[in-house]
């Protein structure tokens, strides 16, 4: 079907990447599935049953998904005004905001996460400032808490939320808000009936990226959460490396993958419905 391919490119050009993905993505995934079905004496769904009947495991899964939701909401609430500002700013301010949004991406995640440890630690910037100002007597526990992980992840993943929002808000005609206003709509009604619906594709794309990135963010989760908090990626690592239980680790991975895919599918469905009329 070479003739049907766009611009007449030879489909064989896709083979290097295709085989690369097949070898390093599809094959390991298949292996993961097979290993997850291993039980002590044969094959079956024993590992899955073990996970789904174990409160400890389910709590880790629930906690991880909750973390994803919290980070996504934090990014949305903080990122939307920034994206709005970007859409309504003159050219030079747009460039400045884009630079500020992209700046974190120029630093490694490990470095950014260590910065948060410096900020949140017992002798960290926040605690020193609060103690110095006489507002508290003993340092607050900020590091190794869920709040700390959410704050760090929200900062690390912010560009993933802001960039799709900027694209969606930038596409919307500024006359639409003026039109709503002249028709008698106040600021809130204009936002609710015009700005928000038109930003929906960007909101959904941003949520999708932020959610998937934050539930799987092993480095930030582990360093800021410390040993006190266990999330799914760390759970997999613990089972596989520390306890050597490869089949159970594989089952955890598959369950986690399916959960994330369900969220992605739901958001995509919402996205398709909202894109239908924009």
């Amino acid at each position, binding site marked *: 079907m070479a003739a049907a391919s766009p611009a007449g490119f030879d489909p064989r050009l896709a083979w290097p990447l295709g085989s690369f993905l097949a070898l390093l993505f599809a094959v390991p995934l298949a292996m993961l599935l097979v290993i997850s079905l291993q039980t002590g004496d044969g094959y079956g769904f024993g590992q899955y049953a073990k996970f789904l009947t174990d409160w400890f495991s389910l709590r880790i899964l629930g906690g991880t998904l909750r973390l994803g939701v919290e980070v996504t909401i934090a990014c949305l609430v903080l990122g939307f005004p920034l994206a709005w500002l970007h859409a309504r700013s003159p050219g030079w301010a747009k460039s400045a905001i884009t630079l500020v949004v992209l700046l974190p991406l120029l630093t490694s995640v490990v470095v950014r996460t260590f910065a948060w440890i410096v900020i949140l630690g017992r002798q960290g910037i926040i605690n020193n400032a609060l103690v110095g100002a006489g507002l508290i007597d003993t340092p607050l526990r900020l590091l190794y808490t869920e709040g700390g992980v959410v704050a760090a992840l929200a900062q690390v993943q912010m560009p993933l939320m802001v960039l799709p929002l900027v694209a969606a808000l930038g596409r919307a005609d500024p*006359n639409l808000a*003026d*039109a*709503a*206003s002249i028709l*008698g709509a106040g600021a809130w009604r204009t936002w609710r009936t015009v700005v928000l619906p038109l930003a929906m594709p960007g909101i959904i794309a941003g949520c999708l990226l932020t959610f998937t990135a934050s539930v799987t963010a092993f480095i930030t989760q582990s360093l800021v959460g410390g040993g006190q908090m266990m999330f799914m990626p760390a759970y997999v690592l613990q089972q596989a490396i520390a306890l050597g239980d490869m089949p159970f680790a594989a089952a955890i991975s598959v369950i986690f993958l399916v959960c994330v895919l369900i969220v992605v599918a739901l958001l995509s469905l919402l996205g398709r419905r909202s894109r239908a009329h924009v």
Partner: protein
Amino acid sequence: MEQASTDTVTGRSLLLDRITHRYAGQTAVGNVTLDIGGGELVALLGPSGCGKTTLLRIVAGFVQQTAGQVVVGGTPVDHLPPNRRAVGIVFQNYALFPHMTIADNVAYGLAARGVDRTTQKAEAMRMLELVQLAHLATRLPRALSGGQQQRVALARALAVKPSILLLDEPFSALDKNLRLDMQIEVKRIQRLAGVTTILVTHDQEEALSMADRVAVLSAGKLEQFAPPTQVYDTPASLFVNGFVGQANMLPGTLVSPTAATLDIGGTIPVRHCAAGTGSRVTICIRPEHLQLDDATTGIPATVGLGLPLGPTIVHELRFADGSTAKVIEPRTPGAAPRPAGTAVHVTIAPDLANAFALS
């Protein structure tokens, strides 16, 4: 707002009282006064950057003027935000809400005013019938053609019974054939609704054909505010004469308040000019006021180019001193343009030239 949803409040007078707007140190609008009667259609005409769009945004409340007052029906409205001014706008790109049906677009202003759903629907359908689009009520805007979208925008603006309707270059996105139809349609609907209307345009034909009065603006200043025929026949300034319609501009000298000598030769009568006798003037003559004459009366010239335009023929003439002028004459069937290089004489219809002192 309650007033705006009754049938009685259309066609209120609009007074722009000495409006000045400065933006970043530049004067966008300088001391413009327009007294517009209820139900009147006034065109703001001028090249881009003349301040007409700024004036429109001041009336709408999107821009707060530096000085002056906007008075609607005798009441100043300067303190009111856009959503409380009872003004309707048709934007240049129509700005229909892309995620709402045509009916919801038209009902939007009613919904914002807290009108109940049944009345909203009935009123939206009534407006759509007015613009003859009721059969498309459940479509989305992108399913409509440009002309249909514009009629929806008009219905949406009129649904809230605005006291003032603002049209911001509403025809510029339409192709030429559709434009004339829509101009007639909009004028019909405006008459029917009886709403005081401001039409912003850079298209002089549009302004002349649609407006009861035309306000010509240049660089933020009001050059002339008069009925279309008066703007065309007795332009108040050199700018108006050049911008509205076509004009041959020839240098000359005023020999009396009502006569001038052209540098290319010949003395012609002009409309009264206040500049002193002997002052240098620019004499504006419309191309249709010149006639070609094969006899030897008039000013000698040679034909540079002849263009047959169907109902008319345009000749470009070159005079002895190198200056040029255009002549537009009605074309009789079978008549062809004179070939280039033909020697002709040109005569000027009396009393139809305007002289403006060089500033």
